[in-house]
């Protein structure tokens, strides 16, 4: 199953703009974040606190819709889905 990860701002600097992950079996948002943390120590430090919780400032979108990192991390992902990871927005 292919999942596209998109990262922006500080997370883009750590992860790159786009990553294509090939995941065996079922995939969830938290599962993808865990894979990213294993592969990239800087991402782990930027996105997770010491107890392994996602930090409050990390924002997530699945297929361009915001998800709540406190409730929706177990959301099931499907082949071709896109998970976006970014810090708080600051435009304008």
């Amino acid at each position, binding site marked *: 199953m292919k999942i596209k990860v*998109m990262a*922006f*701002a*500080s997370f*883009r600097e750590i992860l790159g703009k786009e990553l294509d992950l090939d995941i065996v079996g079922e995939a969830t948002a938290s599962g993808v974040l865990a894979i990213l943390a294993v592969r990239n120590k800087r991402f782990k430090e930027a996105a997770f606190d010491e107890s392994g919780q996602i*930090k*409050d*400032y990390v924002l997530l*979108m699945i297929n*361009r819709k915001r998800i709540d990192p406190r409730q929706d991390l177990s959301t099931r992902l499907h082949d071709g889905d896109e998970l*976006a990871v*970014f*810090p*708080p*927005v*600051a*435009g*304008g």
Partner: protein
Amino acid sequence: MLTIEITNEDFSLDELVRKAKRKDAGALVTFLGTVRDDGIERMELEAFREAALPELERIRDEAAAKFNLLSVEVVHRVGSLAVGENIVAIVCAAAHRDEAFRGCRYIIEELKARVPVWKKELSKNGERWVGHE
């Protein structure tokens, strides 16, 4: 009629206002955000374009409905900008000024809170993403 753009290019307010003008509009309020010099040299702007454009469209539609706007133009720049350069312009046309002022204010407030765009400030002392913890 209602244009939304995310672009590397600079823009002209005269051109945006020309597009926003309506015969039944008596008031056009424009917000222009520029790179402010508070010790920085440049600013880099980055957007999640595919998510930002539909979010801007939702904000524009909300504002048009709430404040009876007759037209709305929004341009947001991305890329590397020097002090004084234009970042964002919002033009709202309405029959009367109260609606135009409130509509324009609504759009910039919601844009800053909701639209996936990020700024990095570059100064002599280094660089900093705006809005981080």
